[in-house]
């Protein structure tokens, strides 16, 4: 069955991020001048404005910063309710990287702010793309 939910249109600027996902790596830009992470990726560091940034592979571990259980939806998501949208705060610091994604593999009633979670990957060969979600961290 084809994947019919919205997918990203990768830009040249962030090509390393999407290439990283294919290798099941979650890459985040880090400023080579001041060391801050920048999520979402910006063309220059949001702390010191340096354009000298590198893509580093993050640990993929995070915690629930906030979440919502979606109970009414539309289109390709209609059949999935209830599902969970999470704001995932990556372990990396300084400058928090708070990533919007789905949280899967958990009973919605069991979710709490602060819950340890980790990035998981889904390959979509027919779309030539790998996408990411979060799931509860391995025990």
């Amino acid at each position: 069955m084809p994947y019919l939910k919205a997918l990203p249109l990768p830009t040249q600027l962030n090509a390393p991020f999407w290439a990283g996902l294919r290798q099941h790596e979650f890459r985040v830009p880090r400023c080579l001048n001041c060391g801050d992470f920048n999520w979402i990726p910006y063309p220059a560091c949001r702390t010191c404005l340096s354009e000298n940034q590198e893509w580093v592979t993050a640990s993929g571990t995070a915690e629930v910063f906030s979440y919502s259980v979606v109970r009414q939806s539309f289109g390709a998501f209609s059949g999935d309710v209830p599902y969970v949208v999470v704001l995932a705060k990556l372990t990396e610091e300084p400058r928090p990287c708070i990533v919007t994604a789905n949280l899967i593999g958990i009973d919605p009633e069991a979710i709490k702010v602060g819950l340890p979670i980790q990035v998981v990957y889904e390959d979509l060969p027919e779309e030539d793309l790998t996408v990411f979600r979060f799931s509860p961290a391995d025990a």
Partner: protein
Amino acid sequence: MTFANRRAAIVGVYTTEQARRIDRSSFSLELEAIRGAVEDAGLTLADVDGLAPMVGSDHLSAENGFNTTLAHQFWASQLGERPLNLVVHGGGSAQLPKVAAAVSAGLADVVVLFYGKGARYTGPVDNPAAAGRAPRVQEWSFAQSGAYMTTWYALWAQRYMHEFGATSADLAEVAVFTRHHATLNPASVMGSRGDLTVDDVLSSRSICDPLHLLDCSLNNDGGYAVVVASEEVARNCRNKPVWVLGGGEGYYTDFYATIDDPWFPDDGKAVRSAANKAFGLAGVSREDIDVANLYDCFTITTIRDLEEMGFCKLGEGAAFVKEGHCRLGGKLPTNTDGGLLSNSHAGDPAGMPTIEIVRQLRGEGGARQVPDAKIGVSLSQGWAVHGVAGVLVMGTD
């Protein structure tokens, strides 16, 4: 050479019918609103030398759309085929302060801000999968996660409840007082349904936890317009001028893709910045405000508005509401028209909070009139939870 430094006033307001579904074009509602507001001012379209379309259109089309800077191509021609001195482009939430500033500076004398939405659905939509393939969207768009505006505000509410101990019942109190005000506003969409209880809100179906249906604003049709004029013009208008005492705009991403931790910093973000600017320019304190209309797209928004506007401290918004301060007769009657929750939310309602303040300061509030209202404040915000803000402090002689 310097710009003028003259007073600006709101001299005309108009709202069309606001209803769940109006089978007219957006243009038709906008034109009715523009004509109505100009007439309310006692002016004619020939007096208008500036426009503030809340959204763009294009060269040839009346149909409004988002974020194009070509709106003048259509509207300047449609409204009289003559040069205008000012067209204010951009998102709706923060246009009135800069319109007032432009009039004050002498760039234009009479500016009409307007918006309309008819027979057009603006709620969450899927990007239809053409030919059985996944649609492609901007690379960080939350549509990939099946999220939409309500989800986004739900994330905000959930984090707020976690940090400050607020409950769903606390949020429901906002829907309750706002609905009560709507019952006193015959033009409101929901007033005829009568009062709500906290239990009504909590037992309405959940859309995105923790937000229930009745925590969400309406999604209806309607149009409105506001006329801002220079002091010289205002003195000769039909109604008493509602002076713009001060205004401010605030910008900050506060977007789901760029959230900071803390999300609720002590020193605030766009709304705090806009409010401090507006109150500072007006020389008015928070205690001087007789009536407030604060953008309430969701119940959580009102609570955060009260905090960021400086009417209470961070984390105290829910208690402020629960103590009854926002009700008619309270120390800060708020959203007396029923707000976006129970009066009207048609597309981009950013001008509606100001319109209600103008009516209150003119004494036209009817059953919902705040006695002797002399100074009021409006807040509109949007495009992120608190990312773009416009604050106007207004007063009468």
